[in-house]
């Protein structure tokens, strides 16, 4: 095992995993919030668009989206996000697709958070003269995020593990390196365990942190 770690850049591969997860998490949180607001808005067209977004991307396999981004969007439509490097383009597209895919889950987590808020909160916000945007920002979203921390945590953990899908377009993240090592070396089980433990180290503390956060930030009613 020692020479596997010295021969291959395992830490670097997990670094790529963290890089993908970090930017996709930010991307999906922003995009998911926007889609969530659309689904909650009083405008019918926006609600339909939001619902359509969630239904399309939540139900499309992530592998399909990632493969489409490189084979379809880059090679056929010429949308190259990093012309200087093939892997750079692939990892950027992976971030975009991970963001788009997980935004649908973030949207639904937020919506479930909004549903924990009594209807009177929105009415009170409107009654003192706040606009839709203001009551969202000041009253509904802050409470929705607190109510949605637990499901958002689950989404983040799923996202970290889903970064492994980027391996299919050649992004050198953890799962990609694991496949390479298993191909070249003996002792597949040991290699597998190393990577499995790597993911546990990434996700387990996050799960604990989110659980304790959701308890501490819960809105007292």
């Amino acid at each position: 095992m020692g020479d596997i770690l010295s021969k291959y850049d395992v830490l670097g591969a997990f670094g790529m995993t963290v890089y993908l997860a970090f930017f996709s998490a930010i991307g999906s949180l922003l995009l998911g919030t926007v889609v969530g607001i659309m689904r909650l808005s009083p405008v019918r067209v926006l609600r339909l668009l939001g619902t359509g977004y969630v239904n399309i991307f939540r139900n499309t396999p992530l592998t399909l989206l990632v493969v489409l981004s490189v084979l379809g969007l880059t090679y056929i439509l010429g949308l190259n996000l990093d012309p200087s490097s093939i892997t750079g383009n692939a990892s950027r597209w992976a971030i975009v697709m991970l963001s788009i895919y997980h935004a649908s889950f973030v949207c639904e987590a937020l919506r479930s958070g909004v549903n924990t808020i009594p209807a009177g909160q929105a009415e009170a916000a409107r009654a003192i003269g706040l606009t839709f945007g203001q009551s969202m920002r000041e009253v509904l979203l802050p409470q929705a995020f607190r109510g949605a921390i637990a499901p958002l945590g689950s989404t983040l953990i799923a996202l970290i593990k889903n970064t492994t899908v980027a391996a299919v377009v050649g992004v050198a993240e953890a799962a990609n390196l694991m496949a390479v090592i298993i191909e070249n070396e003996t002792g597949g089980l040991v290699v597998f365990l190393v990577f499995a433990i790597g993911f546990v180290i990434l996700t387990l503390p996050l799960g604990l942190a989110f659980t304790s956060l959701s308890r501490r930030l819960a809105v007292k009613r």
Partner: protein
Amino acid sequence: MTEPLVVLKDVNKHFGDLHVLRDINLSIGKGEVVVVIGPSGSGKSTLCRTINRLETIESGSITIDGQALPEEGKELAQLRADVGMVFQSFNLFSHKSILDNVTLGPIKARRTPKAEAEKRAMELLERVGVAHQAQKLPAQLSGGQQQRVAIARSLAMDPKVMLFDEPTSALDPEMINEVLDVMVALAKDGMTMVVVTHEMGFARKAANRVVFMADGAIVEEQEPEAFFTAPKSDRAKDFLGKILTH
């Protein structure tokens, strides 16, 4: 009556098959205190909520200070800023401190500078007797205190008219008076008020007019003393007979 501030004309509304508001005509003068009473399901809360368009209406018109209620958007928000509303379940913003609850409206909807809004908020909290709780969260206050904060929150917007939708119905009996006292003081100060309530004592003490509703229609309008001693309609006699015998 002084010049009318809130005018409802031929207002109708259905909830599905239920005709909750039937041809409502009501005019509320500046500085007038109107108490709306009636059996549950008579449409009195719905009536109250149509005045700031928390409930939409199907036909008829509602004007406030001569201006028709806007449909949606910024104009509606501006109009709501001028109409205070106090709810049965307080509806204080549960994630914000008492002080922030009161300053949110002035800062966001009126663009009042924060320092000024806080100074005014503390005066109002002083007036309703909860200034010493300003930094707490709503859940840490009693129901009566929360409702008084809700009144302060509405007052902070300097409303032209205040709507009270059963403000004491969710309170324990010993807290009802502390809220009613604040409301009576407001009425004495000349605030225009529409109050949906079951508190007959408040109606007698502070109201200029009692509006009795049943089955979505206004059955009777009278001065409080006349209404309670000599109701004209059978529905009102029946209703008062049921609640005043205890």
